[in-house]
């Protein structure tokens, strides 16, 4: 993938860098103006952005439209909540558990899902996510569909104190930047090249000599594990987890974020997640029936904004 920037600072990189800088300086500003609410929105935004970045890895670069990605968010969140329920608060256990459990779920379900293509893939990923949803609803011990309250956030042996909002905030920001860097390296690597070519022309990729099923499965597992991290952070942020986190509408929202921002572009999902949440906030403050405006607006943006927001920014450079 060659990225050519004709002008030294294009609109696209200005928006990207400006956005990341805005995220970085938000906590002191929020404190200065005594508006902790904005910090909350930004944290939710970044958690969902990590989930969208993980979905983009398989959807945008690998052409695998997973309609069950919210399941990984839920698994990640419960991997924080369930240990906490038993009094285990160490983040050094919770975070690897979240990523490991989500990755394992991706491995098992992906092994089946990736045998299919197109609409069948979409439906079967949805089906597995619904299974996970109902499994958690049925477990009374962890609150069933009432969910579980996480009273104590992950502890990191005194290194960082997540009870401080700013600490949690910066941990999430670092995780987001780390996810972006990870995806960027993967996509440009040999492995990523194979993934991108299976999206472009899978039959040809096999004729060349790639066992594309295995590559796609590994990519699916990486994506699931990364989304599990997003879930673990989201669970820490909200302090309350429930099966609703893995509802199928959540999976749909993640797809929207990726497509809205620009599938297959590195920063697209971040732009998509930010736009999605800002629109949601603004519209819902105007009217109770905000979804009546939100839905058609999203459809129009996806229909007419080819390449998403990122594609629009790219076409605007001098």
């Amino acid at each position, binding site marked *: 993938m060659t990225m050519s920037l004709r002008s030294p600072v294009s609109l696209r990189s200005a928006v990207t860098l400006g956005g990341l800088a805005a995220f970085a300086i938000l906590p002191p500003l929020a404190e200065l103006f005594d508006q902790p609410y904005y910090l909350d929105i930004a944290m939710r935004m970044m958690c969902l952005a990590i989930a969208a970045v993980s979905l983009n890895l398989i959807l945008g670069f690998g052409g695998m439209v997973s309609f069950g990605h919210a399941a990984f968010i839920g698994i990640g969140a419960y991997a924080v909540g369930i240990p906490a329920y038993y009094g285990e608060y160490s983040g050094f256990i919770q975070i690897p558990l979240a990523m490991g459990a989500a990755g394992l779920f991706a491995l098992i379900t992906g092994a089946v899902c990736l045998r299919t293509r197109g609409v069948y893939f979409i439906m079967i990923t949805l089906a597995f996510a619904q299974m996970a949803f109902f499994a958690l609803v049925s477990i009374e011990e962890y609150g069933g569909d009432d969910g579980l309250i996480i009273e104590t956030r992950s502890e990191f042996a005194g290194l960082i104190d997540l009870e401080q909002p700013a600490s949690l905030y910066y941990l999430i920001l670092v995780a987001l930047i780390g996810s972006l860097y990870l995806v960027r390296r993967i996509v440009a690597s040999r492995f990523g090249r194979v993934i991108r070519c299976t999206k472009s022309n899978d039959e040809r990729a096999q004729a060349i*000599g*790639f*066992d594309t099923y295995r590559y796609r499965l590994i990519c699916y597992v990486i994506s699931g594990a990364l989304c599990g991290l997003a879930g673990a952070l989201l669970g820490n942020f909200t302090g309350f987890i429930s099966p609703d986190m893995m509802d199928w509408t959540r999976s749909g929202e993640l797809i929207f974020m990726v497509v809205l921002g620009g599938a297959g572009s590195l920063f697209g999902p971040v732009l998509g997640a930010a736009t999605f949440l800002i629109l949601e906030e603004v519209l819902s403050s105007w009217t109770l029936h905000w979804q009546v405006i939100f839905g058609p607006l999203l459809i129009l943006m996806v229909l007419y904004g080819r390449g998403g927001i990122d594609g629009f920014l790219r076409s605007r450079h001098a």
Partner: protein
Amino acid sequence: MPETQIDSKIEPLIAVRGLCKSFDGIIATDHLDLTVRRGEIHAVIGPNGAGKTTLINQISGILRADAGTISLAGHDITAMAPHGRSRLGLARSFQITSIFSDFSVLENVALCVQAQRGHSYRFWRPAAAESALNAGALEALERVGLAQRGGDNAGHMSHGEHRQLEIAMALATNPSALLLDEPMAGMGRQESIRMVEIIRALRADHGILLIEHDMDAVFALADRITVLVHGRAIASGPPDEIRTDREVERAYLGDAGPDRGGQADG
């Protein structure tokens, strides 16, 4: 008609024995025997729907044969997956241009080099910076005369250049056996002549199975020709023999019946 046995002592590179394939009762391959030796171009010709592409699809592994065996350099590959056959030295080009159109020309070929050299479970190092991949890709591009176009977007090339890129991609996996499915399809006169030159230059190092409708190209290139009608080899031999074969003439004049196997050739 049995195949002409010129030097039966030399083990053929590709050997197809008793191959059968049918789709919903329509016979696409009918007890076919066929060999390709090293350093030889074996052309398969026949009317549309004769089962030529179906044959290539079975040899390359996209389709599984109903009966019969296929071997590659002595290995039985009848039940092997396409990527396994590729690793044993088999490469094909596609009748309908099949490239990675959102990749650059060089990356298209580098991907093929990557498939052959080492593994692709490398997640960190940028592939575009690997000089071994790029050098191998450039070499393949040079053999088809596209070395200057490496940086261009593959989706933006002319039809003739796409066909050349197809060949370069097949070459990049360093194959011993090449299956070329109508490399001249849709080409103008000049482009065809150029392609004949490219393929002729490949004969020395490869065994080539060539499917082609352009008879000038076939008779200019082929060492042996097999004529396929409804999946059956009705004639096989050197070009001069085929040119004068009456049965072949009949098949091309349309006496061989309606074009029943139409779907098999797609």
